[in-house]
């Protein structure tokens, strides 16, 4: 059974299901309680689970990451909300030097099962310090897993999967997706991490996209279909550890690949994907160069039109895809 939920509702449902099922799960972060979260994602959870398990915190991102790590090391399953992904910069020491490494440094004797949920992305007019997409920083840190759901169903299932996972997981939500609706299965339905999914099948071109860009790629695919270009849209869903094979298989089938993400292009996840594809058996099947479409290398601007231009839009994807298929560049 499934029904339509928004991405935010799907996340809330996953948190509630996990908390009902497991006493070790608790939620904490800035304004997650009375306020219901800066984007309303955790609305109602305080009333339902009480202030011990839904904890409003001071604005202290460094110690909050430490609380997630320390509590996880000693038997709890914390869910931490960092209000904007930009603010994760204030948690970096505890995430990168403690959470990611403690298990290895201590000879594998502890597990650190926590989920850090955080909204990323531009498009809300919040300018350069409230719009970042920093997922690739964490992709570069062994010991951490990185998840970026694009649909309400994935948001619910992958959050449950992340909570079950015995490692620290950075769960990157997109602000513009919170109100997006889609079918979501009822009940406790975790999706295991590291399962890439083909969101739409097509024979002419593979678009590998993450988060909000998956939706834009699907919209672009509709337009392109009317021109006779059949696009396959592939969503890694878990950026690390990546399930590579479905991506490689798709490129082998289509012979062309366009990678789309919102984060700045230089040093972004697209570079890693391109290298994986180029180094795989798909290389021999390529009929055109591997292309990347990504955020411009700049801080997110405030002005509506500048902000729009900084991030790939549907028409940009259509143009890039058309060129790749028609002109091979």
């Amino acid at each position, binding site marked *: 059974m499934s029904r339509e939920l928004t991405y935010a509702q799907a996340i809330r449902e996953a948190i509630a299901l996990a908390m009902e099922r497991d006493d070790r799960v608790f939620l904490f972060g800035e304004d997650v309680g009375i306020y219901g979260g800066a984007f309303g994602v955790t609305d109602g959870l305080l009333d339902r689970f009480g202030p011990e398990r839904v904890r409003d915190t*001071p604005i202290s991102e460094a110690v909050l*990451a*430490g609380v*997630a790590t*320390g509590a996880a090391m000693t038997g709890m399953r914390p869910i931490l909300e960092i209000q904007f992904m930009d603010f994760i910069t204030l948690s970096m020491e505890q995430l990168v030097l403690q959470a990611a490494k403690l298990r290895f*440094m201590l*000879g594998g004797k502890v597990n650190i099962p926590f989920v850090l949920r955080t909204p990323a992305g531009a498009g809300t007019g919040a300018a350069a310090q409230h719009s970042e997409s920093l997922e690739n920083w964490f992709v570069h840190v062994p*010991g951490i897993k990185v998840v970026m759901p694009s649909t309400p169903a994935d948001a619910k299932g992958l959050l449950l999967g992340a909570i079950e996972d*015995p490692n620290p997981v950075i769960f990157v939500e997109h602000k513009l997706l919170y109100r997006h609706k889609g079918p979501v299965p009822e009940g406790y339905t975790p999706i295991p991490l590291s399962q890439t999914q083909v969101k739409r099948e097509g024979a002419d071109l593979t678009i590998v996209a993450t988060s909000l860009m998956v939706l834009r790629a699907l919209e672009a695919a509709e337009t392109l279909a009317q021109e006779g270009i059949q696009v396959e849209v592939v969503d890694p869903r878990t950026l690390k550890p990546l399930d590579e094979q479905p991506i490689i298989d798709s490129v082998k089938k289509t012979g062309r690949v366009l990678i789309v993400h919102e984060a700045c292009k230089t040093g972004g996840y697209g570079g890693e994907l391109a290298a994986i594809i180029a180094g795989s058996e798909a290389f021999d099947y390529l009929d055109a160069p591997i292309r990347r479409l990504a955020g411009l290398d700049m801080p997110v601007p405030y002005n509506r039109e500048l902000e729009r231009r900084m991030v790939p839009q549907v028409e940009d994807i259509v143009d890039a895809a058309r060129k790749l298929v028609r002109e091979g560049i």
Partner: protein
Amino acid sequence: MDDRTETTSSPERSQGPSSEEFAGLSPDSLREALRRMLLIRAFEEQAEQLYFQGLIHGTMHLSIGQEGSAVGSIWALRPEDYILSTHRGHGHSIAKGAKPALMMAEFLAKETGYCRGRGGSMHIADVETGNLGANGIVGGGIPLAAGVGVSIQMQKLDRVVMVFFGDGAANEGAFHESLNLASIWDLPVIYLCENNQYAMSMSVRRSMNIQDISQRACAYGIPGVSVDGNDFLAVYRAAKEAVDRARRGEGPTLIEAKTYRWKGHSRSDKQRYRTKEEVQEWQARDPIRRLAERMMAQGWLDQASFQALQEDVAREIQEAVAFAMESPEPDPATILEGVYA
């Protein structure tokens, strides 16, 4: 630890001023504490020798001279209580009950070491004795302690967590965040600052404008106390009070133990920032000798038994070295083990 502490009803406890002077600790408990302090010193002296012989890879941070604060504070804990330690953490590990053989094996990067040779001197952990690990980042354990405190509180465990850090870490921003959070949530955390006067080369006189680091406690509405860190009993008393308070659910305490490291910060330190005279002054306040002399004055220790303790400790360290030397190196095929669960 509490199981070595006499209860108020025990006959020895009611002996009057003498047992009061020893904070209610029994002669057996004190002898074990003294042995633990000797063990820390012997362990570190041996480790330094192995380093000079080129057998230890990397660096290490010795706590020689600080044994009073390590053992005095941990003596107020129970076996099931947690500690989080620092880069200068060998003493904390041994005080909490870590086996020197497994520590030495770790120093020699062997598979049998506490961290399977993956962590080294700066990351000794012994989860079974509640030791959640030393930390290479100054102040790195301070935020973790708040998390362990939340965990204890939510699981309703009758435990506390003691987090060690130095004077340098008290100037990190995370110190502020952690003490504030522990205070508002009444977390069972004992913040134990071992002020050994220098953050590498930076003197506390130059790095802060307060007399006592414990003064900072008032900013968080929690108790703060400074003690002579080279006086085992003074540290024990302060720690006991803080631990009891935390166990009652009354929240955290900040303790400053003023002490001194006799050796340099690490193996590369030329010690340009302090004088030989200053080092000698502190060496005259050796925490081991001070406790031994007090016990002798009380008739709870004599020269022969003190010497026997030292011989016992020396034997344990030799066995530790032998175990470590004979142990196998990690198998390179297992290189990625432990990165992810």
